[in-house]
């Protein structure tokens, strides 16, 4: 469980995060939802320690992360896997070397053979067993995201952070990526935090959703509660999605579109 309490962050006088407190639950997909520029990426970077918040504290399973000694921070960092918005693969290395890299750096006690097996396993897990020898420039955006996931889970992380895992992907691929993250989270009991502004992901995998608006947390709950939320900003956000609007229209016309929509999502994503 990751606890974030009262995080504030400003850039050159403009406050981007205005005191955010929330909890990310273990073994679940926690979604950070919000419009563009609301500070989702900044919050994520504060949590993983790429940025220092001006105020507030972050606790990983009881260990305070902010302002603690470098050794403790290092210890926690080694348990963090992260998928970046642009994948951030090392472009001088092949796909397999990318996945192997954290193992090489963080677990020198592993033998070459063990490492090779782990790389194979992780690539297979994301469905890329044949792409190991390719360079990042030679694979598609969706494949890059999957390599990013494989690299993040290679050292058996306890916390997985994904910044917009499905931005720039077609709906089918993005559902596949969502499902992959969801499966991995449950398989290994990882605490997963996903930044998104995609309502599809919310309906698909949102087990715990935190809605941010202009640097503040306005709402949190599950995907079943979100459609009935009474926060005007959240309503605006949800119903700006034409898919949801369409479902709502059917709902009004036929009494059951919205319900079918929610059911569909529960049975594994029939959108």
């Amino acid at each position: 469980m990751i606890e974030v309490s009262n995080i504030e962050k400003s850039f050159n006088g403009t406050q981007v995060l205005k005191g955010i407190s929330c909890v990310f639950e273990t073994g679940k997909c926690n979604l950070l939802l919000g419009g563009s520029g609301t500070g989702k990426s900044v919050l994520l970077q504060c949590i993983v320690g790429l940025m220092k918040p001006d105020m507030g504290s972050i606790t990983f399973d009881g260990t305070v992360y902010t302002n603690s000694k470098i050794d403790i921070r290092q210890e926690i960092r080694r348990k963090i896997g992260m998928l970046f918005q642009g994948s951030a693969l090392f472009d001088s290395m092949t796909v397999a070397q990318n996945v192997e890299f954290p193992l090489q750096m963080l677990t020198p006690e592993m033998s070459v053979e063990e490492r090779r097996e782990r790389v194979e396993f992780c690539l297979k897990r994301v469905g890329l067993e044949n792409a190991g020898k390719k360079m990042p420039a030679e694979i598609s955006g969706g494949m890059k995201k999957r390599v990013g996931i494989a690299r993040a889970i290679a050292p058996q992380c306890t916390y997985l952070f994904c910044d917009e895992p499905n931005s720039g992907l077609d709906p089918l691929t993005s559902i596949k990526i969502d499902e992959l993250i969801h499966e991995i989270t449950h398989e290994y009991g990882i605490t997963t935090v996903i930044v998104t502004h995609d309502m599809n992901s919310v309906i698909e995998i949102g087990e715990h959703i935190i809605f941010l608006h202009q640097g503040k947390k306005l709402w949190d709950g599950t995907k079943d509660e979100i459609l009935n939320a009474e926060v005007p900003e959240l309503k605006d956000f949800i119903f700006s999605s034409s898919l949801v609007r369409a479902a709502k229209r059917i709902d009004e016309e036929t009494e059951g579109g919205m319900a079918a929509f929610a059911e569909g999502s529960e049975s594994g994503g029939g959108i």
Partner: protein
Amino acid sequence: MLTTFGSFVLFLRGMVTRTERLSVLWNRTIDEAILIGVDSIVIVSIVSAFIGAVTCVQIAYNLTNPLIPQSTIGYMVREMTILELAPTITSIVLAGKVGSSIAGGLGTMRITEQISALEVMGINSTSYLVLPRILAALLMFPMLVILAMLLSILGGYLAGTLTGVMTAQDYIEGIRTDFIPYNIVFALIKAVVFAFLVSGISAFKGYFTTGGALEVGAASTGAVTNSIIAILIADFALAALLL
């Protein structure tokens, strides 16, 4: 200006605290040394051979006094190239080649979040990315400068004899007159200092790139111009201090 210098010092300090394992550092340094050194041999050779040749021909053109022996030309070519032209021109050429590639490479890694990815893994990105580049430069610049010295003296020899401005004997006699071994040491000290300036400044420029592809280009250009200015200032300072 002063704050930039302060952050440069902090940047260098961050690089040597909590370094990665020695084996990793060693492998990375060798990789970078190959990139910096081997790939620069051709350009350094061409430039230094021509510098030696031009120096020889121009000195010969200016030395018309019959009282001064022809061998003086060889002597002057040696002095000029070893003391000044080989280390300085080679470093300026390398500032263009190595400096821009360090800044461009690190800048690209920064804007594509590869540096953040390293940091999240708990890896000290400056010690992993920057330290090997600086060490490699410290290793390779002196070697390339030695190569440049040899080739510029050879270039002078070829130019002198082929154009017929002097005999081979005169040239060889000239380059063996009053040889001061300390000059070579001095040139190598210069090479090491320039190596540090070029790699350090370029890495600093690249590492702190913000923005997009345009800024990576700007960082590369900034790295080259700043390195060259730093080389020239250091060249003057070293000459004033050590000669």
